[in-house]
């Protein structure tokens, strides 16, 4: 059986994605973890992975000019749409690897070479196997790297007969998030009762709808603004979206992170731990439902 993928996403950053997904990781029995927030990954801070294998990620090609052959004619500069070609040099940060400059260069002075833009790690943690990655700062192609991470996580899940891949996603709705949610079963959206949290949740919900992913919503710090929380609840009710749970503002969330521990291991008897256990049980239930629908 192919593992069902569940991603924790949010739209807005800093709503508690990693704190919640790491807690789920600790609670869940047989899972493979994937940190798809490749340009600011944090899950490893709580799960302390032991890296077993590192692979280079070749995200794209980049143009290189042979200065000895370049005649400084300027054609590449005129045709490059990314403002990267400035003969006799190419700005490797601006270059998107399209190959137009190589094609138009009359002196054949430009070559496209493989460009390493990150690493993919296969690791072991106390919560199960984990795949994570690190984009070299400033690089593009984070969507492609996310896809690599998911592919490897699914392969490992198959090998280990793990039924679930749990993904910690990135904020936003662009290429990384699209690469994260394409083809997954459940998107758990962590929001907060702020105007920006609501705004961003609505956008990411539309994205999940476009990709036909079943949404579930967690309202974190719900007591920070009861009125906004009511608004989110009413909004979800109207759209038929299940609220997975509400988490009250509690310093224990930050304390456990500062201790570099997942919440359930830091505070096993805390009411929040029990709440998260119930939430995860419900995710597994819904995943079973979604699987039979497909």
């Amino acid at each position: 059986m192919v593992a069902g993928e569940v991603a924790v996403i949010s739209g807005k950053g800093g709503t508690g994605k990693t704190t919640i997904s790491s807690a789920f990781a600790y609670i869940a029995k047989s899972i493979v973890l994937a940190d798809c927030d490749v340009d600011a990954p944090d899950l490893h801070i709580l799960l302390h992975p032991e890296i077993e294998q590192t692979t280079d990620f070749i995200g794209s090609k980049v143009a290189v000019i042979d200065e000895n052959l370049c005649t400084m004619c300027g054609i590449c500069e005129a045709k490059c749409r990314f403002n990267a070609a400035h003969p006799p040099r190419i700005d490797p940060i601006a270059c998107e690897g399209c190959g137009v400059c190589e094609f138009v260069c009359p002196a054949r002075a430009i070559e496209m070479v493989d460009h390493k833009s990150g690493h993919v790690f296969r690791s072991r943690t106390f919560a199960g196997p984990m795949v994570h990655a690190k984009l070299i700062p400033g690089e593009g192609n984070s969507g492609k790297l996310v896809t690599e991470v998911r592919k490897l996580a699914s392969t490992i899940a198959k090998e280990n007969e793990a039924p679930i891949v749990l993904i910690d996603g990135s904020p936003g709705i662009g290429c990384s998030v699209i690469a994260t949610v394409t083809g997954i079963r459940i998107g758990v959206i962590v929001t907060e009762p702020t105007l920006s949290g609501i705004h961003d949740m609505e956008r990411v919900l539309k994205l999940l709808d476009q990709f036909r992913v079943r949404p579930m919503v967690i309202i974190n710090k719900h007591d920070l603004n009861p009125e906004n929380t009511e608004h989110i609840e009413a909004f979800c009710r109207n759209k038929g979206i299940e609220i997975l749970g509400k988490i009250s503002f509690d310093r224990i969330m930050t304390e456990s992170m500062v201790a570099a521990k997942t919440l359930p291991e830091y505070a096993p008897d805390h009411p929040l731990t029990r709440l998260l256990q119930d939430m995860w049980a419900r995710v597994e239930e819904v995943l079973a439902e979604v699987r039979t629908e497909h």
Partner: protein
Amino acid sequence: MIITVASGKGGTGKTTVAVNLALSIGKTQVLDCDVEEPNSHTLLHPSDITSVIVTAPVPVIDSDKCTLCGKCAEFCQYNALFVGKKGVMVFEKLCHSCGGCALVCPEGAITEEERPLGDIHRSQIGPIKLVYGELRIGEPIATSVIRAVKGYIDPSAVNVLDAPPGTACPVVETMSDSDYLILVTEPTPFGLHDLSMTVDVVRTLGIPFGVVINRANIGDDGVEVYCRENGIPILLEIPFDRRIAELYSSGVPFVQEMPEWRDRFRELYEEIRRIVDGSR
């Protein structure tokens, strides 16, 4: 002057710092470059909004001229073209608008057509001129919308840019050409980790920067130690205050209710001004 507020980790308070700083300075322009999830307008509440569409060119195939030779698809690095037996399929969302396919087509069968990717909204709110971009939902490539927002930078004014989270290309696109970068973080292991990743990006760009620690009393001293060891100035510390969080949640910039903070932000601006003038 261009001051960009960035962070690495999401939700550390970029928008809070950008908007409160702008309000404290007075006559400024706020440009929200977090086009995937723009939030500045949730604090500034623009009413009279002028909008324009951001487009990018994508290929259009003239099937009468196309011989299905496949050169366009072979050239495309982004798998945006697929040449089948009956015609060419264009996957517009994968297209990076490089124009290569039109160049390589031996039949001259490819032209380009503008396709909407996002929207730019502009509004005047008191002394603040707000420009924010919005990537349309389902579109993966944010950079052209960010570039379009930056097109509104007024070189004669104070421009405060609100950057997206992360350390990938949209962040670099936002940061480039800035005179100064404010990196907002929180004093936790996540905040520190993502700050250090952002510092790596910033060092390659060579732009002067400093750190603002938000919710300064919630975690540990990791960020402070890191800044001290790496010679990074800590510009401002904003303590965790439930009132600030509650004001933010209802869309109120806290300098409006806690005016003593106006002076702090104003001092922050003066300090940045001195650094920027000194490095010119």
